[in-house]
């Protein structure tokens, strides 16, 4: 009989679920664009169960992760930090991974992974510069959709320097560039380089080793990925499941924990 496990990643800006069969096959996934403290987690859970045609009782083990992981105490069997879950998920998708860079809604994490397990990490300080929220703020000022940043940045022809020290300062720099008539595509490219420079600094602290995998929603932005590749001088691998990576890791840990509990 198949064993189904569920991983739920409640981030600060989105809620993601992954259902696994026997710790290998992805049966269903869901993503709702609001995170901790909203209806997002419940909606994401309902959606993933519905898609798989399963009920709570069919799940052998449920593991929550992410900023809002503690809010599911009654529903989930256990919780783990998103650090381990991102390491685990990346290890499943890229077995050779040694460095995982995750840019989430409000934090940036760089993890060292050995044999598919996170063994050390670095996180950003309290400043939001370099996070997903930073890009959201910039997209709003530029009046473009955050999803289009990658495509627009690729059309840049001129270097524009944007500060990576502070979101508020960077925002005023962007406004000032706009008022000077600078091309939006160049500004966007500058923003991507600003994010990359900050994240690269964090990555160097832990020591970057191949393979480097980038996870989290921001990994869908090719502009940031390319700028980071350039800043690190290494190839960065991404997956179409990038946004689900934390939930995937949680579902894998859920399977592992279920197995451990039922071994003896």
């Amino acid at each position: 009989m198949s064993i189904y496990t569920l991983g739920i990643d409640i981030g600060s800006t989105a809620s993601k679920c992954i259902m696994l069969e026997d710790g290998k096959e992805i049966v269903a996934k869901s993503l709702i664009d609001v995170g901790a403290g909203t209806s997002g987690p419940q909606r994401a859970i309902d959606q993933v169960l519905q898609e798989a045609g399963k009920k709570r009782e069919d799940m052998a083990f449920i593991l929550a992760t992410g900023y809002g992981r503690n809010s599911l105490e009654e529903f989930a069997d256990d919780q783990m930090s998103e650090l381990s879950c991102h390491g685990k998920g990346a290890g499943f998708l890229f077995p050779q991974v040694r460095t995982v860079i995750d840019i989430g809604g409000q934090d940036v994490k760089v993890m060292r992974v050995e044999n598919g397990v996170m063994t050390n990490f670095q996180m950003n300080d309290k400043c939001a510069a370099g996070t997903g929220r930073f890009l959201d703020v910039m997209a709003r000022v530029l009046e473009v959709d955050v999803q289009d940043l990658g495509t627009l940045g690729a059309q840049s022809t001129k270097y524009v320097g944007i500060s990576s020290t502070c979101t508020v300062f960077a925002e005023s720099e962007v406004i000032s560039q706009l008022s000077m008539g600078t091309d939006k595509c160049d500004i966007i490219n500058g923003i991507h380089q600003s994010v990359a420079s900050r994240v690269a600094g964090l990555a160097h602290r832990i020591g970057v080793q191949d393979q480097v995998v980038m996870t989290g929603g921001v990994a869908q932005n090719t502009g940031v990925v390319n700028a980071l590749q350039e800043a690190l001088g290494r190839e960065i691998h991404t997956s179409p499941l990038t946004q689900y990576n934390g939930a995937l890791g949680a579902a894998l840990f859920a399977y592992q924990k279920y197995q451990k509990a039922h071994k003896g």
Partner: protein
Amino acid sequence: MAKEVSPGVLALRKVVEDVYADARVAKKEGKLVGWSSSKFPCELAEAFGLNVMYPENQAAGIAANRDGEIMCKAAEELGYDNDICGYARISLAYAAGKRASRKFDPETLEYVINPASGRPLKDADGKVVIDPETGKPKKDPKTMQPYTVLDDIYEIEALPETTEKEIAYKNFRREAIKPYRQMRMPQPDFVLCCNNICNCMTKWYENIARMCNVPLIMIDIPYNNTVEVHDSNVAYVRGQFDLAIKQLEELTGKKFDEEKFNEACKNANRTASAWLRVCDYLQYKPAPYSGFDLFNHMADVVTARGRVQAAEAFELLEKDLAEAVKVGKTTTPFPEKYRVMFEGIPCWPKLPNLFKPLKEHGVNVTAVVYAPAFGFVYNNMDEMVRAYYKAPNSVCIEQGVSWREGICKDNKVDGVLVHYNRSCKPWSGYMAEMQRRFTEDLGIPCAGFDGDQADPRNFNEAQYETRVQGLVEAMEANAENKEG
């Protein structure tokens, strides 16, 4: 059930209480009292029989009593930037006469109780009593506190005292100042500053001296970029020791008492030796106490290391610990699953929050850098200079790494939790490189979190909890990898 406190801990608490109580008495008697930085050569002041208090220890106490924010804000209103050390801001506000006080009604002279304060009321079975009207736990009225407001002792002293009502009001306002000892430290008649502990000290003490119009006795110890202290550096500081003695002679009108000085040195050495032996008890597995206890005992090494009572109290604690190890007792209220080094000063205003996830995951702090930083023993004046040359922020990174890696090995830690302390840039600044070396040299994971030793506005509980959990998971993975 009340927590059992060992005789050694009680003795240590009394030693610190006495430092402040003696100073209050001395001030009342018209004697000179001083404020000193934590690693100023206290032996010099002891030689003159001076009562000295310690603003760093005071600021930690004020912060732990949850008054750090109001005092930091008071300093910011005086014009000090919020980037400055939280201890310095608290101390500068205090020097300017600012006090955390209890709010009261000036007409009735009754305290105004903050309804949000207090602990939940418990019934005879120890269960929390729920208020049927609100559905929320009822508050135990005995634990409820008045609102905290900022007051100013100079404003109070300037109030008129002509009518009975005015006198009663003035007295009540004096009494309303928070009653704990750190909020009732007498104003200084002189200040003693040694910048070995950090460079911010210099300006901090210059400002106090100017605000209070009192003399400043300064000993400058430059950052030491080599592991050894060169003879020329010793001569530079030794010259300042001699000058400080001369300045203290002028201040007190007394001659330097060599006998008293030698006695203070003997006591300081005895205290330091006992302190080191107490620190070594953290090497036991499980440890009979926690590094957080050591943070509290630091107060004694800072405020009273030249007093014989401090040495005796540490020796008593040493006996308690020997007994605890023998019978397998520990002050840590959970089974020790992981052992970590806690790097940096704790976030005093957030101690319970700091402790919560550590307790949840069975993490005991079994190493802190204060052991070598304050455990110095010397045999003559030049050796004393060399000893005072070595403080966490005055030694080079090689020495800093060596201190820490030594404790990590001896105290058998599985990981390192680093406090990136917004108040202490010199200390936090080189931690990124240190973290890298700890992992490379010792093969252990490290996690850093943002916080502040005194200003609660710089700490985020959720961020901290994620980092602690990440560290625990990495330590677990590390252990599994080692086991193969």
